């Protein structure tokens, strides 16, 4: 467990850098976490972030497939927005826990 300050707020992080408490998250924090991952957030990024946080709020499992069907972005576009391991990077920026989905 580590502590880090994003956007003036000190938060608890897991060993892998995910926020422990998703309620501490705000958009300014997202911008700073994104910068650490070499991503500059756009409106499209925020639309995905909102979708992910909403899904988690409802207790649903996050899958890449669901994002592809969200109407916000297709799967290819999702990989372009959050390069590398998109679901992991996107959840990290969204202040959510590490995804446990296999699809």
């Amino acid at each position, binding site marked *: 467990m580590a502590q880090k300050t994003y956007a003036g707020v000190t938060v608890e992080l897991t060993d892998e850098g995910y926020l422990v408490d998703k309620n501490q998250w705000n958009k300014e924090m997202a911008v700073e976490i994104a910068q650490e991952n070499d991503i500059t957030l756009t409106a499209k990024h925020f639309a995905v972030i909102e979708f992910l946080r909403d899904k988690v709020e409802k207790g649903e*499992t996050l899958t*890449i497939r669901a994002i592809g069907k969200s109407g916000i972005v*297709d*799967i290819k576009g999702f990989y372009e927005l959050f390069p590398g*391991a*998109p679901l992991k990077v996107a959840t990290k920026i969204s202040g959510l826990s590490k995804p446990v989905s296999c*699809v």
Partner: protein
Amino acid sequence: MTEKEEYPLKKVCIICAKGNLEDVYAACVMANGAVMEGIETKVFFTFFGLDAITKKQMNHLHTATVGNPAMRMPNGWAFPSVLGMLPGVEAGVSSIMKKQMEALDIPTIPEFLEMITAGGGELYACKLATDMFKLKKEDLSDEVKDIITVGEFYGLCGGQGTQIIFT
């Protein structure tokens, strides 16, 4: 404190040689899972595994109801092989399985192929097997990048941190 050196997986090359629903899913889940982790991914479909990327067959893959000791009835009883031989049973069982997978947000095979390539994974068909089954590039899913020889596939599997997986 001792430093543990880690050598993360950089590339996986998966060979799918069987056309049973479960074998194809194993290959697809592993391939897509690698793509999701940002690992370079290449899949080589050969022999009956070609069904997974053949337009005519890809939506009609079945699981074996005969000679499959892990096959169970919904209540947990062993599934008698004799039942599995009856016409329509294999299709029925496969259809139930597909419904259960849909409920878990597991994609269909064609959709899985699209997800893999959307994330930058590459799909290949085996030259020898396509010749044998008389299949041409146009008979295969549009997601298939090329028909290549096994030697060419090995050529794509080089580099440190690469693993070849046979399903």
